[in-house]
């Protein structure tokens, strides 16, 4: 069953891209690869919020970094070969590489990456607490959890992005969730 993308019916009436909203994800990716700006815009609208949240794990200015990621995607989307499932993993791989490059650049310049959740989460204090909990996890645990929960990728896709086996990704996810659960339990008990 093809995954539907795009706006809600109310929004699609207002949108000029109504004819694209009905397309399934595979067709959307194909159209974007062919150079359709409308399809690309729909893909961006779908992935942008999740990608910003994922990149918030690496930097306190995730939207700037996300813009760079989308420029890279737009630059090289015509050379992409694969189906829609591979496309999902491809764009998150680009995002992860961009975050890694940024971290290296800041490390060379001597500026440490101090995350400040309030910069991107806004007034949602609950989300700040959740992100704070996730960032307390070891980096590899937090990354696989973010990719599986926020980016909504399965273990095989995450394994391709982080360069590990599926089993390793499952173990890392389990350990991360277990540790997160422990933190939540302790926090609940402490309250």
């Amino acid at each position, binding site marked *: 069953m093809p995954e539907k993308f795009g*706006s809600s019916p109310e929004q*699609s009436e207002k949108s000029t891209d109504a004819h694209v909203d009905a397309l399934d994800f595979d067709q959307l990716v194909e159209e974007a690869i062919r150079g359709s700006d409308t399809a*690309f*815009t729909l893909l961006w609208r779908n992935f942008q919020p999740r990608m910003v*949240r994922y990149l918030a794990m690496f930097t306190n200015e995730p939207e700037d970094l996300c813009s760079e990621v989308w420029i890279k995607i737009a630059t090289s989307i015509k050379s992409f070969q694969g189906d829609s499932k591979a496309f999902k993993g491809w764009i998150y791989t680009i995002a992860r590489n961009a975050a890694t490059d940024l971290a290296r650049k800041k490390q060379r310049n001597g500026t440490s990456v101090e995350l400040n959740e309030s910069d991107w989460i806004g007034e949602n204090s609950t989300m700040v607490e*959740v*992100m704070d909990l996730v960032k307390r996890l070891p980096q590899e645990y937090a990354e696989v959890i*973010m990719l599986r*929960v926020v980016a909504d990728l399965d273990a095989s896709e995450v394994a391709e992005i982080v360069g590990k086996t599926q089993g390793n990704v499952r173990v890392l996810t389990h350990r991360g969730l277990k540790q997160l659960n422990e933190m*939540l339990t302790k926090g609940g008990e402490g309250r």
Partner: protein
Amino acid sequence: MSNKEEFSLENSEELLANLKAGGHSDFEQLRSTLNLLGHVTELPPTSTPPVLPSEIAQPVPLLPMKSTKPRRTIVTSVIVTGILASASLAAAAVTGVGPAPIVNIAHQTAKFVKGVAGAVSHIVTGNPSDTAQNQATSTANPLPIPSPSPAPPNADENNQSDSEHLPLIIPAITNLFPPVSPESNSHENNSQKPNTSQESPSSSHESPNSSNENSDSSHDNQVTKVEDSPTATPKGDKEHSSGENQKRPSAIPSVKPSEDNSDENAPAPTPLDRASPNSSSDQPIPSPSPSDQSSEND
């Protein structure tokens, strides 16, 4: 604590799989947290991406390329190699020491640079005929350069010719340190024996001006003329070595005025200096007397 013990790998996978379904779970707190983490707000429909593929298709290849480390290394190595090559060529041109191909190239380059410099200097002074003549003398050297110093028999004519060719003196002076080409070297080496065999102290004393009338650019022709001179004598093996030793420093005093050369204490002219066209063809060289030979050998 019971949650901690019960939470297994299967539980985690099941939890993640059921996150979107919204069903109940044994780990409700964790599930709600993950739900909150995975929930994102939709963007407004009017929002647009920062850039579209159609917009960046053309500008991206035109972006200036960053100077990467390998590129800097290549450029630096090319510059250093060029500097080293030019320095080695200049050293080979000045000293004449080194592998034969390098010396050849150095001499050719020096000739070319000299010709260009002469041409430029004559363009600046505005005398194109002299330019052509100078180039001819500096490269092929078909004709000997007229003597800048007056000769006693036809002093007026020489003075007139000196005034005419006065601009030629400057390039002639600049040619005092020429890179001796391998051809001229071979000529010199081949012709020094007969040349030195003609050396006669009497000729050097009798016509001191003949040594001043030479320029280094006319050595080759002069040597060939001297070979034909009837006054050539088989003597002079000793003088050959002495003349060879005096060869390098002799280039500078060859342009001194004739008054200085008339001094008896002046350095003896080199074989090349003596082998001037005037001394070989215009003025008959007298045969050396034994007393002169002995004095020179001393």
